[in-house]
């Protein structure tokens, strides 16, 4: 993305709420999306991410609050008066029309001249890498190809905003991984403001400029993939994105806690009183195992539990000797090989203070 900060957001959402009877699906959402930005709405099902997308598209208008797109108030506009292209999980290609006719669908209706339509369709199909398939029917294409056609169709009218509703969920893992890159690449080339709804954190982390993590109709955190993963703002985000150990303990000082008999230091200052109940979060892959020395912080002598081979790493459970502390750790295959780590062995590990996140208990009460 451009590093020059743009001050005027392309999409501005203020105080957005959506109620279904007594149920609050969206609770006073505020969100700004910058021009050319790729933003993912991430969260478990029922968190409100789809509801938010439907409000932006006008499929299901919000109960209260406003949405501005490119300076225009679109809060209550009907779908057809808004400016977006949309791609669904189901592709929603018209089965009885050829690929060409599918892509040209909106152009024909807009009264574009024939030659212009042909040119544009050709251009779009080349853009999504399917120049040879123009005369086939959707059912004759693979899932990934169909989704690319859907993308071309959504781009045909050069919309200001691209909405992707779980676009890759129906595809198998290999195709999904490839298409991720292609969509992201296309988006960056077109500098097209894009919103994607997904429940797949990997998808969100690899494709987005920023991620909006949602839960219970609220935004938990907005940040770059790095921030979301590395510095989760809430225990929910910490739990939802990536794997996480939640270790319950008590503060000793603002930078130290006792967790099940083990003393852990962390670099971030926690503004809670001494003795406050806290949860210390630790990602399994952050457990350091190489170059552990006297000077290492949070050094623990641990016993290795059952080693599970995951494919590109090992997952295991460690028991810190002399304490009640158990936690999971991921070790690279290299480390396991080099250090000869095996089930039942006792080894030295360190928990880097920078990598520990501390939240007040109970977890759900964090804001």
């Amino acid at each position: 993305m451009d590093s020059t900060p743009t001050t005027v957001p392309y999409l501005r959402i203020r105080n957005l709420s959506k109620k279904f009877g007594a149920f609050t699906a969206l609770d006073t959402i505020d969100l700004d999306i910058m021009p050319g930005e790729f933003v993912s709405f991430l969260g478990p099902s029922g968190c409100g991410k789809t509801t938010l997308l439907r409000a932006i598209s006008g499929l299901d208008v919000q109960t209260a609050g406003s949405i501005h797109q490119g300076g225009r108030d679109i809060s209550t506009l009907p779908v057809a008066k808004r400016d977006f292209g949309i791609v669904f999980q189901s592709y929603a290609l018209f089965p009885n029309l050829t690929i060409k006719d599918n892509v040209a669908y909106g152009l024909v209706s807009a009264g574009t001249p024939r030659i212009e339509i042909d040119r544009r369709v050709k251009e779009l199909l080349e853009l999504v890498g399917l120049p040879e398939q123009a005369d086939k029917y959707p059912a004759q294409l693979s899932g990934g190809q169909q989704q690319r056609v859907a993308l071309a169709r959504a781009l045909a009218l050069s919309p200001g905003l691209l909405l992707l509703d779980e676009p890759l969920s129906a595809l198998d893992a290999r195709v999904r991984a490839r298409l991720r890159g292609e969509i992201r690449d296309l988006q960056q080339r077109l500098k097209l403001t894009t919103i994607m709804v997904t429940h797949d954190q990997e998808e969100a982390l690899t494709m987005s400029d920023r991620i909006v993590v949602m839960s219970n109709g609220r935004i938990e955190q907005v940040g770059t993939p790095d921030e979301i993963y590395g510095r989760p703002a809430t225990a929910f985000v910490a739990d939802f994105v990536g794997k996480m150990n939640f270790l319950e303990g008590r503060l000793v000082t603002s930078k130290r806690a006792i967790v099940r008999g083990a003393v852990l230091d962390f670099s971030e200052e926690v503004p809670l009183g001494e003795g406050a109940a806290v949860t210390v979060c630790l990602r399994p892959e952050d457990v350091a195992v190489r170059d552990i020395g006297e000077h290492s912080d949070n050094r623990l002598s641990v016993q290795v539990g059952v080693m599970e081979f995951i494919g590109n790493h090992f997952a295991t459970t460690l028991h810190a000797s002399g304490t009640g502390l158990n936690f999971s750790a991921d070790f690279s295959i290299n480390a396991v090989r080099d250090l000869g780590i095996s089930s039942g062995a006792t080894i030295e590990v360190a928990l880097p203070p920078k990598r520990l996140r501390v939240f007040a208990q109970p977890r759900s009460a964090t804001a």
Partner: protein
Amino acid sequence: MATETLILPDRTAAVAPLRQKLGHDDWIMRGAVVALGLWLIVTVLLPLWALLSKSFQAADGSFIGLANFQAYFANPALANSIWHSVWVSLLSTIICVLLAFVYAYGLTRTCMPGRGLFRIIAQIPILAPSLLPAISLVYLFGNQGLVKWMLFGASIYGPIGIVMGEVFWTFPHALIIITTALAISDARLYEAAEALRASPRRTFWTVTFPGARYGLISAVFVVFTLVITDFGVPKVIGGRFNVLATDIYKQVVGQQNFQMGAVVGLILLLPAGVAFVVDQLMQRRQLALLSARAVPYAPRPDATIDRTMLAICSLIAFAILVILGVSFFASIATFWPYNLTPSFKNFDFDMMDGGGWRSYFNSLVMAGLTALFGTAVIFAGAYLVEKTPRFRYVRGFVQFLALLPLAVPGLVLGLGYIFFFNNPANPLNFIYGTMAILVICTISHFYSVSHLTAVTALKQIDQEFETVSASLRVPFWRTFMRVTLPVCLPAVLDIAMYLFVNAMTTVSAVVFIYAPHTTLAAIAVLNMDDAGDVAPAAAMAMVVFATAAVTRAIYMLLTQGYLARAQMWRKR
């Protein structure tokens, strides 16, 4: 905390929720939904209301409360009809559903040969007016019957004849429902049963039967409703055994007693209404049984079972063919039973009651118009009800109106049409006595099933088509014409076919509202039989059957030939 949550609702209530501005599409679609609603109010609800209010009125139109009902129940003969109707319908239902279950089992769960042929034969009764089986039964078991001895001295005129005729006529209806129920059973359950070494009998009672349970219950109610509201069979073969459906006819046409007809009509609405509600509930559960992961069951050959089922199904199919064949035979015999030389004397309809050949051509026109306009209104209507954004309450009400005819027996609807449309104060009075009222009444009569067919087809296509087109700023009607309609073409043809065949064969609703220049073939069958011209009645019934069968054949060719080509895109 508690106070805050208490205050919250007040706060939200104070601020009115945002309302989306309506686009062009919204205005058009909402307008069309309202128009459809008004259409259904005029063609279904108001006639029913007219009937209802008539039952509380004296002949001069003054309100007399329940006096008509009191009079009805005071007449033992009439009250007796309720009991007759109930037990004859129950008996017919049990026999019909049992036979249909066995037949359906043979079609879906065995490898007996000729299943395709058996399927076609089983559809024959749908193509004929219900009067046809009754006429055939007279020729088979009447006092001059070919095989009268088979009844061991009992008379075909009365409950025996009614039950036999109704079983024949309702058989395909039950069969379709049960076949569907059996066809969706999950093969994995059978594999599991086999793995657990369950005996075939145990597998049947623990897997097959529960799987088809809702289908069976649904079939029971559909058949029961059809029988209790059918008028053709008991009219021809009921003899002195009165049932509710013939009572209405007698009260109205025989005794000029419209009020009493309205009373009987209301009584007839009850079982049909209950059946309707139960059937709706059952269908919902049946759908829930269908999991996306179910694997279709593929039967394996089993010599004993296949042979047994072949024998049973052949017997049933033979019975159907005999009943059809006898009418054909009778219609070409010169003077049954004394002169059996073949002739076309019985096809000289112009010298008989019922309106002659003109009735037949009227029927063709009526059925054609019903199929054309009915399909257009019903499919477009289903589309609007399904796809109009928001507008929930109106759509719900229109949906209710669209399903209402399912609970209304044809006789009751027809009677309501007289009361409503023949009222000079009604601005629509001018359509009374025209072809138009027959077409409208027939569309209303068969609205619900067609509507459900359309809704099912619409639910099966991608729900996001409309969103995509709106985002591409394509008006909804363009997507309807270019995508929805072509994709749903099989269902659309299905509806047209259904309406055409039913319009050709129906008697019950139109019998009250036809006019001299709009006599219909199926009603001619009734009138000729009434006048004792039984052989010509059989002949006309055969002409109706042949027309429906030919149409059906054309439809099959269409779907297999042209449609297959036009729908190339379905192929992978």
